[in-house]
Structure formats: structure tokens, C-alpha cells
């Protein structure tokens, strides 16, 4: 495989999946916050 093709796919897929991974981390943080709020408020219905 040509170096340019390899570079294009590496950068392209890293940008796409890197963004997906960052959102996954954001979701985890949101879940953690949600659980903390539930605990401090004594739980939601």
C-alpha cells in the first residue's frame, strides 16, 4: 500500500473514531454525574 494512501486512511479513521471515542468518554462522565445526582437527591422515581 502506498504511503499517501496509508496516511490518508490513518488520519481519516483516527479523526472519525477518535471523535467517537471522545463522545464515549463524555457519555461515561454524564452517566457518572447522573448517578451522583441520584444519590445526593435520594434517588429519582
Amino acid at each position, binding site marked *: *500500500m*502506498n504511503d*499517501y*494512501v496509508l*496516511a*490518508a*486512511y490513518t*488520519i*481519516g*479513521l483516527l*479523526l*472519525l473514531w477518535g*471523535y*467517537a471515542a471522545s*463522545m*464515549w468518554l*463524555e*457519555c*461515561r462522565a*454524564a*452517566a457518572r*454525574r*447522573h*448517578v451522583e*445526582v*441520584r444519590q445526593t*437527591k435520594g434517588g*429519582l*422515581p
Partner: protein
Amino acid sequence: MSGIQSKFVRSFWIVLALLFAADLVLIIRYAPDERSMGVIQKIFYLHLPVAINTFLACLTTFVASIAYLWQRKGWWDDLAAAAARVAVQLCAVVLATGMIWGRAAWGVWWTWSPRLTFSLILFLLYVVYLVIRSSVEGRERRAVIGSVYAIIAFLDVPLVWLSARLLPDIHPGSVQLEPAMKLTLAASFVPVTLLAVGLIFTRFVLNRTDSVPRNSAQANAPRDVRTMPLIAGVKAIRYTDGAL
């Protein structure tokens, strides 16, 4: 029910990763080398599907912005913002892969041809959209200003699309493909489109959770508040008043 949804979301991302892997095998093993450009042309199988999905993400922002101004429902604005963020990311991939392809095919990283210039303007327009959103105080004011701006910004999309067809441009407006190339291109659209949809949806749900003030929302939550699982088992509050 939530366990099934959570499993579905996790399965979606795993299947998507496998589809990307299968598509790469198809590109490397099955797709033939193009006669004039050779193996360099294989960048096309990532570049074009991501470019088309950039347009679709911009179109989603455009439609959601119009819908927000019409109906004034917050979730339209959250959808517009989600699609715009994904559009910026996709456009960055289009520009990066295009620059690498340009260096290999034309010998330069960048040239101010109409399509390349309008593509860069499109990227910058949507970056500015995100900057505007983060700098305007007040949810409703931000939504109105963002919606009006997004509708105007979308005007650049047809310019990108038509520029290489109507104006003299080094960038090809259309290409002739062999049947095996067409099949590989069609296969490449599947994982890229699913990824774009998955990203917009996840971003949208994150926007919905962020747009609800956390403490007051929890305190004033109605009795029938439901939880909605996301990736990694995240739970977002869903109100039954039609907000989501």
C-alpha cells in the same frame, strides 16, 4: 427494556467497527488500481463517502434550524447543533484526505481551486457556528441566532457541490468507475453513513442531557421520568412533556 437498548447500542458500535474492517479489506484486496492515478485513487473510497455525509450533516442542521424557527422546540436546536459538530469533524476528514490526495496526484498540498476553496469555507462556516453557539448567552437567544446563521451557512453546500461542475477546476467534477470500483464505493458508503448517523444521534442525546439544568431538573423531575441508556450504559433524563 433498558438492558436490551444498551446491548443494541453496544452491538451497533461493534458491528460498525467490523464493517469498517471489512470495507478496508475490500478496498485493499478487491478494488482494482485506477489506470492513470494507480493506487493513489484508493483514497477516493474514504474521501467521497465522508464528503457526501458532510453534506447530509449540513442538511440536517439546515432542516433542524428551519424546524426550530417554525416550532420553537428545543430538541430541534439540539439536533442542529449535534449535526453541525459532526459536520465539522467530517469536513476535517474530507480536507485532510483531500490534501494528501492532492499532494500525491497534483504535487501540491493545497491549491485555491473553486471546490477546495468552497470546502474550506464550509469548514470555517460551521466552526464559526459552534463558536457563536458557545458565546451567546441564553438558551432561546442562542437557538434563534444559531438557527438563522445555520440557514445562511448552508448556502455554501450547493456551491461546493456545483463548483467543480460549473467552473474550471483541477478537482474532478465526476469520475468514470469500473464495476468493481462502483461496488467498493457503494460498500464504503455503508459504514461511513452509519458512523455519521451514530455520531449525530449520540451527540444529540448528550446535548439533550446538557440542555436540562441538572440540579433543578432532578429536583423538579416529574413522577414518570424515564431513563434512556446510551453507549457505556449512560442514562439520560427523558421528560414526557415532549422535550425529547
